C-alpha cells in the first residue's frame, strides 16, 4: 500500500488547480473552443484516489475529467494541447476536454455521457485480470450519475462477478444545476449497499483523507474483496461549464459558495508542508504549466483532410459527404 506523501499529494492538487486556471484563461482567449467543465475545488479526490493506485491500474473519468487524467500521470502539456485541439494533444485533437484519454498511463477515457464509464471500466478490469494481470480500477462519476440505470447495472455486474473496481462518487452537491436533495432518493451509499458493496463517505476536500480511504479499499479489492464505493463530499468552486461565465444562472446561494470555497484542497494539502517546500513545488508547477501552454499553442492544428482519421480501426474508409 502506498504510504502518505504530503509533498506528492500537494503537488498533484496544485498541478490540477493551476492547469484548470490556465485552461480557463485559454478558454477566455479563444484558444480552447467549446469551453471546459472546471474541476476547481474537487482536486483532492483525483489526487487522493490516484495516489492509492499503481501505475498499471486503470481509470475512467467524466466530462469534468482533467483532474483524473492528470492525477493518473498524463503529460500536462499534451493534455493542454488536446484541449486546444492540436495534433500534439493526447488524442491528436480528436477528443478535446471531455474525451481526454491516455491509454499509456491507464486512462481509458473521460466519458461525456453521465454514468457511462463505470461499465466500460468494469469490462476492462475483468478482461485484464482474465489475462492474469493483478490490477484494479477506479471510475469517477458525479452525484448525478447515481440516477443513471447504466451505472447501477454496472454496480451489479462488478459486485456479482467480484471485479475490483473502486466506484468514486464525487458528490459536489449539484448535477449541473439540480441539487442532490432534489434528485437522489435514498442515499448514495445506500445504492452501493443494495448490491452488497462496501461504501465509505469521506471529506473530499482533504486529499490525504481520500487517499487513506482509497488505499484501504484498494487493499481489500486486491485481496479479492470485490468492488467498493467511496462517496467523496466536495464542492465545485466554479461553474458547471465555462459557458456559465457568460450567462447568469442562479442556483447556488452566495453564502454556500463562500463556505464551499473556504475548504480548499490546495490549502488543506499545502498547510501540511513547510512553506519553503511548498513554494518550491509551486514554482515547479508554474514552470511545468508555462511550458505546457507554450507546447499546446505551438502545436499544429489538424489538417481538415484528416478529419475522419481513426474512425475505423480496421482501416475502413468512409464515403465522403460531398457531391
Amino acid at each position, binding site marked *: 500500500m502506498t504510504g502518505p506523501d504530503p509533498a506528492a499529494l500537494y503537488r498533484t492538487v496544485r498541478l490540477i488547480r493551476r492547469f484548470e486556471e490556465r485552461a480557463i484563461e485559454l478558454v477566455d482567449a479563444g484558444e480552447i473552443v467549446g469551453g471546459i467543465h472546471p474541476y476547481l475545488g474537487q482536486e483532492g479526490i483525483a489526487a487522493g484516489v490516484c495516489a492509492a493506485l499503481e501505475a498499471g491500474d486503470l481509470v475512467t473519468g467524466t466530462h469534468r475529467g482533467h483532474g483524473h487524467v492528470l492525477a493518473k500521470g498524463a503529460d500536462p502539456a499534451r493534455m493542454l494541447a488536446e484541449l486546444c485541439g492540436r495534433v500534439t494533444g493526447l488524442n491528436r485533437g480528436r477528443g478535446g476536454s471531455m474525451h481526454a484519454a491516455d491509454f499509456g498511463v491507464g486512462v481509458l477515457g473521460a466519458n461525456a455521457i453521465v454514468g*457511462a464509464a463505470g461499465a466500460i471500466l468494469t469490462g*476492462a478490469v475483468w478482461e485484464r485480470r482474465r489475462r492474469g494481470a493483478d490490477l484494479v480500477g477506479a471510475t469517477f462519476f458525479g452525484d448525478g450519475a447515481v440516477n443513471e*440505470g447504466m451505472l447501477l447495472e*454496472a454496480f*451489479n455486474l462488478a459486485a456479482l462477478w467480484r471485479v475490483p473496481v473502486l466506484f468514486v462518487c464525487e458528490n459536489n452537491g449539484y448535477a449541473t444545476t439540480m441539487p442532490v436533495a432534489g434528485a437522489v432518493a435514498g442515499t448514495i451509499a445506500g445504492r452501493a449497499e443494495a448490491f452488497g458493496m462496501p461504501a465509505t463517505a469521506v471529506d473530499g476536500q482533504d486529499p490525504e483523507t481520500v487517499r487513506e480511504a482509497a488505499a484501504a479499499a484498494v487493499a481489500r479489492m486486491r485481496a479479492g474483496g470485490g468492488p467498493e464505493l467511496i462517496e467523496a463530499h466536495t464542492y465545485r468552486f466554479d461553474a458547471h461549464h465555462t459557458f456559465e461565465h457568460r450567462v447568469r444562472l442562479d442556483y447556488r446561494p452566495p453564502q454556500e459558495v463562500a463556505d464551499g470555497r473556504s475548504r480548499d484542497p490546495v490549502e488543506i494539502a499545502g498547510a501540511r508542508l513547510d512553506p519553503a517546500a511548498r513554494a518550491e513545488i509551486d514554482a515547479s508547477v508554474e514552470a511545468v504549466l508555462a511550458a505546457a501552454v507554450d507546447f499546446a499553442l505551438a502545436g499544429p492544428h489538424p489538417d481538415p483532410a484528416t478529419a475522419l482519421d481513426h474512425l475505423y480501426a480496421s482501416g475502413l474508409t468512409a464515403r465522403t459527404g460531398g457531391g
Partner: protein
Amino acid sequence: MPRLSYRRALTRALADEMTRDESVVVLGEDIRVAAANVTTGLVKKFGPERVRDTPLSEQAFTSFATGAALAGARPVVEFQIPSLLFLVFEQIVNHAHKFPLMTGGQCAVPVTYLVPGSGSRTGWAGQHSDHPYALFAHAGVTTVVPATPADAYGLLVSAIRCDDPVVVFAPAGALELREDVTEPAPVPLGRGVVRRAGDDVTVVAVGHLVHDALAVADELAGQASVEVFDPRTLYPFDWDGLVGSVSRTGRLVVVDDGNRSCGIAGEIIATVVERVRLAAPPRRVTRPDGAVLPFAPALDRAVQPGRDQLTAAIQLTLKDG
C-alpha cells in the same frame, strides 16, 4: 456433402473462433443453456469464464464488452431479441463506435453484436419483431445480414476478426435454412454477391428476402431475366459490385425488411441513381413507414415485404422502360 443449418453455422463460427483465439469471449442472456439455440455446447467446451451468462442488464453488459475490448478481448454479445438493440444503441453507437476516433486512434473496439432471430418471428408482436439494421448502417457501424448458412458462418467469423464493432443480424426467416457446405470459410465484409444472373433488372434483396427474390425470379423466368444481388454487408456496402450489376441491367428494384423512411432501400436507390443512368424509375418494397408488427399472423405478414409486392414492383419497372 454435409448439410449445415444456418443456426449451426453460427454456433460453429463461434466455436471455431474461440478455439483459434483465446481473446474471443461470448456474453449474453441465457447463453449457458443456449436459449436461442446458438451457443449450444460452448460453455462445456470453453468454460463459464469465456461463455458468460449475464444478468438482464443489457446496457451494462454491452458497455462491459466495450471495456473488455479496450483491454484486449474480442467479445461477442448475443441479443435474444432484436428490439434490445434500441436499448443498447447508445452503448454501441455513442461509445463503442466513437472510441477509436475520439481517442485519436489509441484503441480499437472489436466487439461483435449477434442478433440471432431478427425481424418477424411470427406471433412475437410489436416489441420482439424489429429489424433495425438501417439504424446501424446510418450510424456507420459495420452491419451484416447473412442470407445463407455459408454466409452466416463466414460473415460471423469475419465480424469477430474485424477490429471495429460489427452488428450481425441473423434474420429469423433464415435461421432454419440448410445447405451443403463442404468447407466453411470466412466471407469478407463489404462484398456482395450475385445470387442469380439476369439481364433485365437487378433486384437487391437483404437477408432472408434473398430467397424470396430468387423464388420470384424463377416464377418470372418466362417473362423477364432477373438478376438477384445480395449485398451481405449493408455497411460498408459493396457499391461497385451493385453498380456493375445495374449498369448491365439498367433497372433496379430493392426489397428490404426495414421501415421505408430513411431505410437502406432508399440509400441503395439514391447511390445507384447518382452513378447509373437507369432505363426506368427504381422501386422499393419495404415495411411501411413507422411500422410496428401487429400480433395476428395475417397482419404480421401484411406489414412485411411480400413476394407479390416484389413481383408487382419488378413488372412495373419493366413496363416503365
